């Protein structure tokens, strides 16, 4: 079987090398260079990183993204959990509700952004403004959009988690005289912690890496104040001549933050499994 490597692995490996490995290595290298095309790169050391961290657009995007992510993680997970709880109470039409709540998750980011652009501008037009009037509108617009998109997804994971809790546990709590609120707090939620961890990290990375929705809903307006990190990196690369090196340095910083989140998740889920 060993000699079948060229047939089984090589095609995938070649595509992976061209699309990912070479670009990744080049990306790290170019973040230490000044360039306008890949051909004219000149080594400048950490200069691009210094310029990235003294760039007010980047710092603003970093802050905006962190704030947006924090609000989204909390709202999405609270709503998704409450809906999952309601739908596991053996209601009529549970499956239809689940189908409906999950549906927005399938729609692409660009389309999602324009759907909400139309609706939010439609509402704001009654007050004589639009979404580019203030960064606050853009911020809450993105939060609403993200909630609409992700609640159904997280709800599905919470439902699966709730259905995995043995029924006997709830019954035992009831026999011991626990109220339904006490049972929720001391039985359901502790048993649901693995799902909570998964959903928290999923919302975290999804919100942090948001791009399409950001581009279509606000495109950074007003004055790049609602640009999140991914959009700011894109604009640095393609919207500012001579700043490609800074764009690449910003992208490396972005990658490091995302990687740290991923490692935190790995550690977190790993230690939870040991406890169980």
């Amino acid at each position, binding site marked *: 079987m060993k000699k079948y490597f060229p047939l089984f692995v090589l095609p995938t490996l070649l595509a992976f090398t061209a699309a990912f490995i070479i670009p990744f290595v080049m990306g790290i290298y170019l973040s230490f260079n000044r360039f306008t095309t890949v051909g004219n790169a000149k080594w400048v050391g950490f200069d691009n990183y210094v310029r990235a961290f003294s760039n007010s657009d980047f710092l603003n995007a970093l802050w905006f993204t962190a704030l947006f992510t924090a609000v989204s993680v909390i709202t999405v997970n609270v709503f998704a959990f409450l*809906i999952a709880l309601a739908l596991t109470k053996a209601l009529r039409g549970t499956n239809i509700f689940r189908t409906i709540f999950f549906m927005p998750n399938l729609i692409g980011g660009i389309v999602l952004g324009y759907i909400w652009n139309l609706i939010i501008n439609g509402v704001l037009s009654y007050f004589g403004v639009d979404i580019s009037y203030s960064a606050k509108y853009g911020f809450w617009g993105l939060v609403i959009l993200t909630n609409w998109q992700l609640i*159904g997804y997280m709800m599905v994971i919470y439902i699966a988690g709730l259905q995995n809790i043995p029924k006997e546990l709830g019954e035992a709590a009831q026999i011991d005289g626990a109220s339904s609120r006490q049972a929720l707090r001391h039985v359901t939620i502790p048993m649901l912690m693995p799902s909570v961890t998964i959903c928290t990290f999923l919302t975290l990375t999804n919100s942090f890496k948001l791009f399409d929705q950001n581009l279509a809903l606000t495109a950074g307006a007003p004055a790049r104040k609602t640009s999140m990190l991914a959009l700011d990196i894109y604009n640095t*690369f393609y919207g500012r001549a001579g700043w490609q090196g800074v764009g690449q340095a910003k992208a490396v910083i972005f990658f490091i933050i995302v990687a740290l989140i991923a490692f935190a998740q790995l550690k977190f889920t790993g230690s939870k499994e040991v406890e169980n």
Partner: protein
Amino acid sequence: MEARRKFGSTSIFILMIMLSVLFLFPIFIIFMNSFKTRFSIMGSPFRLPTAETFAGFENYVTGIKSAGIGGAFLRSLFITVFSVLIIALLCSMTAWYLVRVKNKLTKAIYSLFVFSMIVPFQMVMYTMTYVVTKIRFNNPIGIVFVYLGFGAGLSVFMLSGFIKSVPIDLEEAAEIDGCTPLQTFFRIVLPILKPTVITVTILNAMWIWNDYLLPYLILGTQKKTLPVAIQIAMQGAYGSVNWGGFMAMLVLAIVPIIIFYLFSQKYIIEGVIAGAVKG
């Protein structure tokens, strides 16, 4: 007690119906506005069409013609279908080999695939566009291989996870009966892998159909896919956006994926859970 519980569940039921209306409302608005005349959409998207503002299918006819949406739709379909098929086939083969042949090389390759999953697209977008253009893969056929390269991480990871749990006995029996590895793979391994292959295919199809930035950077605005066409219809035409045609485009981007969803809902939801737990 019983009456109280019944009252509770009825009020939850009513709350869920209200929430459903809220969730469906944005999609309904887009559908409704796609049947209104182009100047009656912006500013009053919540108004139902009247005798004057009802446009019938006009938006679908003009919108599709003017923005080259027909071509974009077919291009998106072509790229999505061929990419998911190639990813499913080649990544299953790769995953099987990497699990069954254990040495330093296969371990290193597997680690690289897993590593690629945590790298955000912005990290490689500029250099990837350069490499892909350099080797002339910047066309609707070449992009299929770019998607293979980008999809390989998650796909190989999920497929390997499943293969590890499959006992090796059947494959060994096939080998003793004189099967070549290729025969063993197609007759024994692939049928067992089917559920995971379906999951991987669904996750990839949703990603590729909706993907915007990668096809925009590689194919540009000439050979546009549907999400790219939607974005440039909005950004390219300064001040003169045809809102009617634009609404029709949004509907065309949503409808296939919703039909796909209603027919394969069970697999999609299972796939999403599996993808979430493993990814």
